């Protein structure tokens, strides 16, 4: 059996991931996170009488805090594994990735452990977020002047 034949044999026995099901779950869970965040924003706006921009900033902090707390307590990873992109794409995913990395390296020292590995997973989000923001800003200038 050569390598190509073996690849075909492996493919024959490898179950396909159910992309449609994963997509629907991610859509519903991600949407639910959005609805909850909106609810928090509305409550803050009404309770403290602040502008929508300020309320959204507070909401973002609260969502990040909740995701970090749930990660630290230790059950959020099970939620993320099940909901997949539904919890990875919102800011919950970012919080989850930095806190899980920090927990992993807490015994390796503040500099060589937590400091060096805090953005182990989230580093790409920051880097490519900045790169795309840069190009989008140029695009914005070209289009809107």
């Amino acid at each position, binding site marked *: 059996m050569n390598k190509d034949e073996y*690849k075909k044999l*492996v493919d024959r*026995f490898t179950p396909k991931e159910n992309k449609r099901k994963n997509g629907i779950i991610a859509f519903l869970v991600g949407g639910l996170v959005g609805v909850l965040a909106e609810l928090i924003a509305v409550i803050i706006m009404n309770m403290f009488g602040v502008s929508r921009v300020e309320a959204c900033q507070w909401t973002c902090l609260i969502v990040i805090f909740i995701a970090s707390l749930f990660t630290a307590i230790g059950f*959020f*990873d099970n939620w*993320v594994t099940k909901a997949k992109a539904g919890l990875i794409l919102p800011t919950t995913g970012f919080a989850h990735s930095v*806190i*899980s990395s920090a927990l992993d390296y807490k015994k390796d020292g503040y500099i060589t452990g937590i400091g060096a590995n805090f953005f182990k997973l989230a580093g790409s989000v920051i880097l490519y977020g900045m790169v795309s923001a840069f190009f989008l800003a140029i695009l914005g200038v070209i289009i809107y002047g």
Partner: protein
Amino acid sequence: MASKKFDNIYIKDAFTIAGPLESEGQIRKFDLTMDDYYYQEKTFLDAEIKMQRTVIDNLLYRNKLGKKIDLLIGGDLSNQLTITNFAAKNFDIPFLGVYSACATFAESLIIASNFIENNLIKNAIVITSSHNLNAERQFRFPIEYGAPKAHTTTFTATGAVGAIITNEKSDIKVESATIGRVQDYDQKDATHMGAVMTPAAVQVLIKHLSDLKRTVDYYDVILTGDLGSIGSDILREFLKINYDIKIKNHMDAGCEIFLKSQQLYAGSSGPVTLPLVLFNKILKNKKFKKILIIATGSLHSKDTTNQKKTIPSIAHAVSLEVL
């Protein structure tokens, strides 16, 4: 020749520790079980070192060996064999550290048997361990990160197993062994280790059978290491298509540890998977007299996976006879 017959090599005693999920699976009887992954230590690294120490301590104590062990051979999955090296420093026994990923136990067994067969030593302890969370951290993602897993993923078992190999007669004879060759069938998916390791298992099985002029029916059971449910299907099909061999007596250790209800993907993996099943299931079943174990190992690291390199694999076969 890759295969060698042994005359007077025996397995005298074995001691097994199983992790929290493993002890709630298909096999319920282990020498010791762990309630949590920390095992009363501060880090998972320390927990695994303590597991190995406990195994060796118990083997020495139970067999009243004191300092009468000539050699300690073993390994684990960690970088630089940290776990086994740190466990070995607690014992005044000459030590050899070996690495074959999940085939480490069989490799240690073969080396120990050769030393004893050539009268260089009288007895040896072989040891191996794996810890799910240490493996997750080293090969995959941070422990608390909930990365989505593919259906083909195998779950690294937590446990430690040690055995005393000796030239004194006992119930279990190490009859022969075949050293495998590294195989690479262009598989790149580290979440599908069954597919990576199957060619190595096939290579060593065919070599073993042809060297010793046997057929698969010679054995009561052929126990492969940790191919998992999907890897086992591929193995059986591979043998059927390429060599026209139908194995009815095949069992995969990866499918024998966890229950389906535990939902741990394609089964168990890790160097302890095979010895856990061998000592707690196969050798306790009186039906199996001639046993062939084929331990399979996937020889990748996180770097080679990130650099999209193909994954080589290795397998070693050891034939055991229950007297």
